């Protein structure tokens, strides 16, 4: 059964913009992205929106719906009360390009700053063998679809543009954690780099990244806090520092 939806869609570019009121039909079972497509087809043909898979797996249709960072393709219209006006805006942590499309290249720049996996010297492709218990922790982080909702909601950069230079953001903390927890990764200075170059210490663990993750990755509990504890092991814990000097190795591997 169709229902009438009252939308407010932000339209504009970097110079100016405003919320535009639109009334549109929505059918049972539809998601917000369906409705945006109907608006695009029937009312505003040049409405800019980024999307791809419509299955919650490509991470393209990230936007803010009633102020909450969400995937438009995973937000059911029926989750809103009949009389509620739905406000749709672009992500507010990144520069806007047009309408609902933002420039997320900040994230690609940060991704390139993280050193890739470094296997043991002489190890050939196909040789590594790992047990499931050693892989499990990292597998959770591999579910990331790079929708950047966590980056968008993180107040460190959302509310402080100047921090973008020194802060990588939650998406990349799970990447660093994934590599630092990998039994075969030989790069030993990831903790130091996380703290000194990627701004791990700026995170005040308010868990918004975890709250918005559409893949339900426990970003704060399973990646950021463990990395903070690993940094403490290396940098702020004199007893562990002393132990590592005596034993001439980096912690207990």
């Amino acid at each position: 059964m169709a229902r009438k939806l009252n939308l407010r869609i932000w339209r504009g570019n970097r110079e100016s913009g405003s919320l535009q009121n639109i009334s549109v039909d929505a059918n049972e079972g539809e998601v917000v992205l369906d409705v945006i497509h109907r608006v695009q087809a029937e009312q505003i043909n040049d409405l800019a929106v980024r999307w791809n898979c419509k299955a919650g797996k490509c991470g393209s249709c990230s936007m803010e719906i009633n102020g909450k960072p969400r995937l438009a393709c995973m937000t059911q219209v029926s989750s809103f009360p009949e009389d509620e006006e739905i406000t749709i805006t672009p992500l507010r942590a990144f520069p806007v390009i047009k309408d609902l499309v933002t420039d997320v290249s900040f994230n690609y720049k940060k991704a390139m700053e993280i050193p890739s996996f470094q296997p043991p010297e002489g190890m050939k492709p196909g040789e590594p063998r790992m047990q499931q218990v050693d892989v499990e922790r990292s597998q959770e982080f591999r579910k990331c679809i790079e929708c950047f909702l966590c980056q968008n909601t993180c107040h460190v950069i959302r509310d402080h543009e100047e921090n973008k230079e020194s802060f990588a953001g939650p998406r990349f903390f799970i990447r660093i954690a994934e590599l630092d927890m990998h039994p075969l990764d030989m790069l030993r200075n990831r903790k130091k780099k996380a703290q000194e170059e990627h701004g791990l210490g700026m995170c005040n663990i308010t868990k918004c990244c975890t709250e918005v993750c559409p893949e339900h990755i426990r970003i704060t509990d399973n990646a950021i806090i463990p990395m903070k504890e690993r940094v403490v092991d290396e940098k702020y814990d004199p007893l562990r520092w002393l132990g590592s000097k005596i034993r001439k190795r980096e912690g207990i591997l």
Partner: protein
Amino acid sequence: MATGVFSSSRAKISERTLRTDKWWLQPLITFSVLILFIIYATFRAFENGNYFAEPLISPFYSPCLSAACATGSSLLGQPFGIIKILGMTLSPALLILIFPLGFRMTCYYYRKAYYRAFWMSPPACAVAEPHSKYTGETRAPLILQNGHRYFFYIGLIFNALLTVDAILAFRNSDKQWGHMSVGTLVLVANATFLWLYSASCHTCRHTIGGRLRNFSKHPVRYKAWTIVSALNHKHQNFAWVSLLGVAFADFYVREVAAHVFTNFYFF
């Protein structure tokens, strides 16, 4: 110069947030409960009385280490003598409360709670914070949050002592064993909640196995890590239950010590 969501490159939206739900409710509840606890705990710490009614001792005053402690309340002796400041006897609670307070202040869950509720950094997700600058936990004093593990270790000692207090509560007021009262249940519950809070702590999880890279080489620690990880899911719940539990245990002992009501014995 405008920054954050009002930066020149971002979508021009004048509202700090467009959230339509009651996003302010959670920080308001957190703020209210923590403020009430702080007021009560401060009052009790300075009250310096009504904390011991054989065999019950308030968790705010245990271990009671000063010579000013009530007779029979000092499990570990009285190494501090009587300390006076400006002519006033220092409450024994003030000698020890820094440790449990430090444990909670640096706890990863409470950090989230008070950064949101008190410092509004941010007040809620996707709600712009009011501060113009932000450096997180990179500088003093917040860099001291990295000392959480030391408070955790000391907290374990406190848990052990409060467990002993709970065991000692299986006596009657004449110090005879084999009795149980409502006060016994209150102290046992308090100690249990505190152990659950400590066992579910992120530092505990890290120490017990989280720092390993190769779980398969440490099967016992891996098993322990999985148990602590399961508890860790509930850390927030344990944080609140143990906080309210410790306040209630203190309140109960206070009322018994002040003869407001008597401690009912089951046997």
